[in-house]
């Protein structure tokens, strides 16, 4: 099913070439005038004279082997261009995922297990942060922590060694994580509450199992199923939104590069990065399904995590 998604997505990405007004050549060149030699190269590389499906096949085949074409603006291999920047994005997404998982799940577990002031304050905080889009969060964080307090640098370029990277990536990671934190915390809290009320927990208590074990072996263990699913889906959603945060913080990741390429109508780059992003998205969703099947023995692999 997910492989099907990927295939269809790649088809759409490729098909964009023909959806554009004008000829495929015009789309590839971004409306620029090209010397005859370049046109010949494009013709050959994209097999522009072959039937549509054949072209799709060539493009896909190339992509799978790592050849994503050439950037019309920078005259370099798209793959190389992506490769230079992908670690920035990967680092950002990973950092943000870490924040979401640790803070979001942690907050949710605490709020779920202990009703009281912690619970209500968590609900209120998450309700507010959920509504703040990442680009707004970015500028607010920049203002407060970079400009006013000076704790973090305002510009975040990667490659400065691990320690510096962690520091420079903190603000963008938080901006990226903020709105997703809310939903992870809420789902975690709801899952914990629901599980704690279940009958099998009563059975465990009735047999004198100590509270700590009841929580870890029954409540947390069972709630882990919906919690993992929502966390994985949330992380997957980060992949697309990272472009916004990268732009706001002037980071040189593939998200920001995607936007620049879109603005300069460099279709090959856009297609290449889109393909990478969609693949990552699908892979993470696949991981979510696998984790779900591992955690819940009632489910057979192949059924979708709802």
């Amino acid at each position, binding site marked *: 099913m997910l492989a099907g998604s990927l295939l269809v997505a790649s088809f759409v990405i490729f098909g964009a070439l023909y959806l554009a007004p004008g000829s495929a050549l015009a789309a590839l060149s971004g409306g620029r005038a090209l010397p005859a030699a370049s046109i010949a190269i494009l013709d050959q590389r994209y097999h522009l004279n072959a039937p549509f499906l054949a072209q799709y096949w060539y493009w896909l085949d190339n992509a799978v082997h790592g050849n994503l074409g050439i950037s019309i603006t920078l005259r370099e291999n798209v793959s190389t261009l992506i490769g230079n920047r992908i670690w920035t994005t990967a680092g950002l997404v990973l950092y943000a995922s870490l924040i979401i998982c640790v803070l979001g799940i942690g907050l949710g577990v605490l709020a779920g297990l202990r009703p009281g002031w912690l619970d209500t304050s968590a609900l209120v905080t998450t309700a507010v942060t959920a509504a703040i889009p990442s680009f707004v969060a970015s500028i607010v964080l920049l203002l407060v922590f970079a400009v006013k307090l000076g704790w973090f640098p305002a510009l975040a370029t990667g490659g400065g060694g691990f320690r510096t990277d962690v520091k420079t990536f903190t603000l963008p990671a938080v901006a990226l994580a903020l709105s997703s934190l809310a939903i992870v915390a809420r789902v975690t809290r709801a899952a914990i509450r629901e599980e704690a009320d*279940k*009958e*099998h927990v*009563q*059975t*465990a*208590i*009735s*047999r*004198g*199992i*100590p509270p700590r*074990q009841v929580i870890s*072996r*029954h409540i947390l*263990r*069972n709630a882990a*199923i919906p919690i993992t699913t929502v966390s994985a889906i949330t992380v997957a959603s980060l992949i697309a939104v990272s472009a916004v945060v990268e732009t706001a913080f002037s980071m040189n990741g593939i998200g920001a590069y995607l936007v620049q390429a879109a603005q300069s109508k460099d279709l090959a780059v856009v297609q290449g990065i889109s393909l990478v992003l969609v693949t990552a998205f699908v892979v993470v969703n696949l991981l979510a399904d696998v984790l779900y099947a591992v*955690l*819940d*023995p*009632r489910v057979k692999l192949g059924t979708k995590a709802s």
Partner: protein
Amino acid sequence: MATQHLLEVTGLRVTLGDGAALRGVDLAIRPREVLGLVGESGSGKSMTARAIGRLLPRGARSAGTIAFDGADVGKMDGGALRRYRGQVAMVFQDPRAHINPVRRVGDFMTEALRTNAGVKKAEAYDRAAEMLGQVGLHARNLTRYPHELSGGMLQRVMIAAALLTRPRLLLADEPTTALDVTTQAEVMAILAELRRDFDMALLFITHDLELAAAVCDRTAVMYAGQVVEVRDAELLHTDPLHPYTAALAAARPDIGRSRARLRAIPGRPLSGFEAPAGACAFAPRCAHAAPACGQAMPELIGVDGGMARCLRAAELRGTLGVTADA
């Protein structure tokens, strides 16, 4: 009787939120005795079991005493409570909901042994395998997941698990209601046999008066959160002390009799929350009600070897039996 009661419940009241779930429960179980607890839904029988098992929901307040072997259960904590839970085991109505679906059967069965009694894993699994044999299941079920077993098998697993700690009292809350008739009979047979083998007392909760009569030594009847009658099981049928019990017995469809319509009790069963404070809760539906019944709450008094909560119990002696159709 001079023998010390194993479990003694006196004046148990439980309030949940604004309403009273239990308004006066008194019962006593002797060692190795089978006491039935019968009532319609809302009568409070499950709540009684939960109270005895210290499983009351959050926010429930209780009054009265529950004494196990003379010790006050309500005051137990920590180690004493854990030991108590080892001695009093519960079997629940819907086994599928009461067993953790993501852990294997063996894990479920041995969990209490391994965490509480500190039994080594291998030995715990041996004991579990042996107990499974006693309930008629193969040891290979230990590695299965609950969703791979049928309802009847799961209930037997639950019973086996409950018995692993060698409890002296088993609280069975409608253990066969969720099962089909054939499986019911099997599980009942296993329960009866194991009770004898393990020398346990049994509190058997059901809504089925007949079933209670077949299995129990004595039966207690509950209505609107109170115990309204306690009687030897057989006598409950032929010679009940309380009008409600008589009505219950009469309302049962009986192949032997032929009647045009089922005799139903007029009105609907009251739960503890709806019952009035200063009157007999059953009076509005009672065929033998007198004006005094609406003015004072009857106490549970001894009548002829049993107990009844009825102002007119002595008067009605001998007239409430299941006799000819009126």
